[in-house]
C-alpha cells in the first residue's frame, strides 16, 4: 500500500550503503532529480546505480557520481557531452562500469519485475559485450543468455499519481519508469501532482499502484 510522503528526504529514507538503486530517466527526461538529490543528502555510499546514462551536467545523478557515492554504474550510454563527472571518475579508475546494450538493459529490468530467471537474446552476440556470457544457437541465430537486474530501490519520476499510487507519465519521460517500478523492492516516485482516486481513467494507468511504495509531490518549476 502506497505512502504519500511529505518530503523527498522522507521518501528516500532508509536506503542503505551498498544498495542497488534503479534510477529512471533518459538524459534529463524523466530523471527524478529531486529524489536523487535527497539520496545525496541522505548520505548512502557504495551504491550500484542502474540508469540509462551516467549523469548530465552537475545535478541529479551527476552530483551523486561527483560526490563519490556511486561504486558502480550499470548503463548503456555513459558518454555524453555533459557527463564530465562520470568521465573523470571513470578515467581515474574510481568508478566501475557495466556497459549493457540499451535493449538488454530494459529487458533485464523487465525480467526482474516479471519473474523471468534468464533469457536468450540475439543482442550483443559476437561482440565484446557478450564476452564470458553463455551463448546458444536458436533457430540458426546466435543468442546470449542475460539475467534480470533487480533493484533494492527504484527512483522514478512520473507525471501524476492518484492517492493509491497509480501512475501516469508524460511523453518520452515515461522511458524506464514503468519497468523500474516493477523491478525494485521499494519504489519511490516523484510526481508533478497527486490527484484523487478516480481522476485517472483505469484504461490509462501505466504503472498500477501495486508497484509503488512511496510517492512525493515535487511540482515542476519548468512548464510542462
Amino acid at each position, binding site marked *: 500500500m502506497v505512502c504519500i510522503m511529505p518530503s523527498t528526504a522522507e521518501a528516500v529514507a532508509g536506503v542503505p550503503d551498498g544498495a542497488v538503486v534503479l534510477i529512471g530517466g*533518459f538524459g534529463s527526461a524523466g530523471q527524478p532529480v529531486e529524489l536523487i538529490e535527497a539520496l545525496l543528502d541522505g548520505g548512502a555510499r557504495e551504491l550500484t546505480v542502474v540508469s540509462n546514462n551516467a549523469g548530465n551536467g552537475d545535478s541529479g545523478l551527476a552530483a551523486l557520481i561527483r560526490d563519490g557515492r556511486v561504486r558502480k554504474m550499470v548503463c548503456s550510454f555513459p558518454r555524453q557531452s555533459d557527463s564530465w563527472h562520470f568521465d573523470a571518475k571513470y578515467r581515474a579508475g574510481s568508478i566501475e562500469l557495466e556497459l549493457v546494450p540499451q535493449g538488454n538493459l530494459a529487458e533485464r529490468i523487465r525480467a526482474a519485475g516479471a519473474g523471468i530467471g534468464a533469457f536468450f537474446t540475439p543482442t550483443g552476440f559476437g561482440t565484446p559485450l557478450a564476452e564470458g556470457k553463455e551463448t546458444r544457437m536458436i533457430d540458426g541465430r546466435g543468442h546470449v543468455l542475460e539475467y534480470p537486474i533487480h533493484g533494492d530501490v527504484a527512483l522514478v519520476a512520473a507525471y501524476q499519481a492518484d492517492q493509491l499510487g497509480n501512475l501516469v507519465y508524460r511523453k518520452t519521460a515515461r522511458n524506464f519508469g514503468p519497468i523500474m517500478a516493477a523491478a525494485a523492492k521499494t519504489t519511490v516516485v516523484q510526481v508533478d501532482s497527486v490527484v484523487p482516486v478516480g481522476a485517472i481513467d483505469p484504461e490509462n494507468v501505466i504503472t498500477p499502484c501495486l508497484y509503488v511504495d512511496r510517492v512525493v509531490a515535487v511540482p515542476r518549476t519548468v512548464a510542462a
Partner: protein
Amino acid sequence: MNGIDRDTLAKVVAADIEPGSFVNLGIGLPTRVANFLTPDSGVMLHTENGMLGMGPEAAGDQVDPDLVNAGKIPVTELPGASYFHQADSFAMMRGGHLDVCVLGAYQVAANGDLANWHTGRADDIPAVGGAMDLALGAKQTFVMMNLLSRDGSPKLVAECTYPLTGVACVSRVYTDLAVFLIEPGRVVVRELFGITFDELQKLVDVPLEQS
C-alpha cells in the same frame, strides 16, 4: 573523386525508404534523412526512448523537456503518435517490427558486420545505447557514412578491426562515393557518385561487383 554531400546522400537514402515504412534514424548523420521524407510518404519515425510518430525538432515554444529524441534533442509529436516504455520500445526494435534503421558506422565489413559503438582505444569511454538492438532488430539495416575516414583509410573493410556492434547485420551501405549492397558472399555496387568503378575498387580492400 568528388562524391556527394551529406544532404544529397540523405536524399538518396530517403528515396529508398518505402512509403508507409516504420523507420529509426540513428544519432548524427542519419538524422538528416528525416528532412527528405515527405509527409505524404506515410513514413513513421520511431525513437528508441519510447515514441512512434516523432515529428521534427522542436523550436521555440514547442520545446518540452519531456519530449526528446534518442540524441536528447527536443522534438515534436505528429498526429497518430504513441508513447511506450523502454522495454516495449526495444521489443518493437528487437522483435523485427521496424522496416528500416539507418545507422552511422566506424566500419562495415564485406559480410555485413558492423562496428559503430567503440573505437576500442583505452582512453575512450564506451557507450552503446540502442545500436546493437537496432542493428540486429530492424528488417533492414542501412549504414550511412563517408567511405573514407579522415586519415584516408576505407571504412568498408574485409574484416572490422573495431569492436563489433553486430554480426552480419548490415544490408546496404550509403556513402559519399557509392551505394553498396551487402549480399550473401558478395558486395555489389549499386550506384557511383563522381567516381568510376575501377577507382572505387582501388580504394577498398573488398572485392566489389557491378550491379
